[in-house]
């Protein structure tokens, strides 16, 4: 596959991502405390998630179900036998002194997910997934330097929240690909209903590993030391951080010549305001976590039949949905991407509309202009949109019949949104009645007779002069269809000569 980084760059960029997503369960992974964001500090804890002596964890069935669902959608192989392990490290937000995670027998591995740019800026990039495992989240530490107390405050509400760790192979070749892949991953997980993937609330977090392969004289390839970037709180900052880090590594390599192996793996934090990465502590080696099997949890097994059943129960993926919308409704890849990106409920609205008006392109245009604009303006979801697809279909149907033009139709639709009234009610309320053919013919005859100058201009070859007739027609009867008036007037004028 071709390298899609800046082709002029004298190196290849190698990126792997590690994504953590919180699962949409009602309770935590190993206890019955609520899994909920935004509660007052330390109001969602119990002896299990506080790590008090004598407490024992018990696996949440729903968390495991959601985890398997996500891994299946990521085309992973699901293990028939899986177990949990203790990852030991000391940190104030980890009350037990270890995290219950998965080490050598994760519940799934060897998946893949493609990064596809809807605008076609780079060819699709298949990214292999090394593994997906299920672990518990840590708490949150807060340090207010301004308060100057010298203490950090610890909130353990998040401790024990079910977390999926998704580790990609280093298959991404540019910051833009990384962003695109993350978008696809987020969309997939949201469609599956396994996570809300809200980065502001920390339910999706991304770390990126990046280094460069630099071709040197004699066919040798120099590899820069791998850097892990943390603290990126949006997909946009992931892209910016990677772009920055790639340039920084190349400069550093030019200055020092340091290569992979001659320097330890480094962790750098992204400073969004400054737009730079800064060095952090050296990464502990994997063996320093002294993993060992978690004695407090028994292993989980799945039969081949159960794994098959999960696979059969998979909903249509965003990728499959985009392809189907393109084919079924003859809309562009870009339009399908916009619609699918808004979520399954909006796609359902679109498909109902497209079926009713028997025209995917027209339905897509109305969705993207009028419906999406209203959703954005009001900050609401399609579920709260005041007009059902049937109502909008009525308006579009009348436009297609020629009862009124598109701009009049949009006014009607806007009024339906504002008032919550039906299309028929709004149409009669606004005094919009279909103009009959006879009525229209009479009106056009009058216009032609009353405007000899325009008629002369048109006869002299200036057809655009007919615009003056349309303006007058709209004044006399706002319900006339401008296209019809124009066509009819031109026909009458031609008949005169």
């Amino acid at each position: 596959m071709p390298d899609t980084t800046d082709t002029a760059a004298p190196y290849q960029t190698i990126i792997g991502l590690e994504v953590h997503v919180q699962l949409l369960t009602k309770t935590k992974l190993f206890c019955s405390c609520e899994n909920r964001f935004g509660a007052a500090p330390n109001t969602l804890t119990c002896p299990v998630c506080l790590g008090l002596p004598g407490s024992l964890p018990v696996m949440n069935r729903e968390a495991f179900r959601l985890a398997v669902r996500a891994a299946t959608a990521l085309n992973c192989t699901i293990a028939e036998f899986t177990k949990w392990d203790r990852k030991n490290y000391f940190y104030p937000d980890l009350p037990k002194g270890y995290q219950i995670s998965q080490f050598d027998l994760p519940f799934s591995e060897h998946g893949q997910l493609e990064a596809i740019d809807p605008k076609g800026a780079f060819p699709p990039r298949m990214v292999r997934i090394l593994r997906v495992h299920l672990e518990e989240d840590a708490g949150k530490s807060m340090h207010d330097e301004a308060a100057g107390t010298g203490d950090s405050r610890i909130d353990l509400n998040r401790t024990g929240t079910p977390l999926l760790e998704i580790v990609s192979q280093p298959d991404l070749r540019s910051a833009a690909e990384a962003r695109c892949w993350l978008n696809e991953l987020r969309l997939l997980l949201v469609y599956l209903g396994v996570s809300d993937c809200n980065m502001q609330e920390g339910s999706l977090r991304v770390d990126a590993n990046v280094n460069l392969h630099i071709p040197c004289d004699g066919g040798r390839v120099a590899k820069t030391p791998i850097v892990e970037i943390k603290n990126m709180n949006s997909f946009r900052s992931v892209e910016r951080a990677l772009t920055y880090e790639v340039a920084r590594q190349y400069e550093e390599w030019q200055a020092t010549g340091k290569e992979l192996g001659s320097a330890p793996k480094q962790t750098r934090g992204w400073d969004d305001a400054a737009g730079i990465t800064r060095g952090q502590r050296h990464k502990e080696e994997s063996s320093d976590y002294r993993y060992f099997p978690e004695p407090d949890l028994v292993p989980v097994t799945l039969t081949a039949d159960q794994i098959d059943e999960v696979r059969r129960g998979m909903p249509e993926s965003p990728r499959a949905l985009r392809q189907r919308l393109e084919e079924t409704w003859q809309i562009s890849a870009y339009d399908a991407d916009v619609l699918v990106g808004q979520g399954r409920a909006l796609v359902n609205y679109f498909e109902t509309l497209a079926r009713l008006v028997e025209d995917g392109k027209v339905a897509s245009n109305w969705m993207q202009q009028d419906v999406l604009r209203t959703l954005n303006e009001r900050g609401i979801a399609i579920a709260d949109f005041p007009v059902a697809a049937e109502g909008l279909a009525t308006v579009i149907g009348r436009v297609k019949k020629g009862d009124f033009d598109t701009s009049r139709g949009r006014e009607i639709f806007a009024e339906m949104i504002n008032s919550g009234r039906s299309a028929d009610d709004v149409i009669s309320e606004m005094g919009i009645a279909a103009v009959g053919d006879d009525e229209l013919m009479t009106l056009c005859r009058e216009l032609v007779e009353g405007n000899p100058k325009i008629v002369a201009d048109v006869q002299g070859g200036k057809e655009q002069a007919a615009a003056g007739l349309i303006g007058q027609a709209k004044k006399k009867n706002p319900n006339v269809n401008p296209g019809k008036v124009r066509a009819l007037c031109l026909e009458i004028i031609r008949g005169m000569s």
Partner: protein
Amino acid sequence: MSLSRDDVSKVAALARLALSEDELEQMTRELSKIVGFVSLLAELDTSAIEPLAHPLGTTNVFREDVPAASLPVELAIATAPKQDGECFLVPAVLGD
């Protein structure tokens, strides 16, 4: 089986234990004995034995995803050496 002082220093650092020179000496001696004792197990031929993930034979112990009451915050933080009525207070966590 014997451990080096460096091995013991490293383990101590991971366990956040500050050992004096004497203690390091003592720990190196005692830990080596313990590791030596445990390594007797290595004399057994386990090539034909399935790895054991858990000593209990059971698997698939789950609970349903139904919330239950959590501890009141006063109780949750009651035994903390330092707290502010809302959070646990710990020496400054910086740089991460």
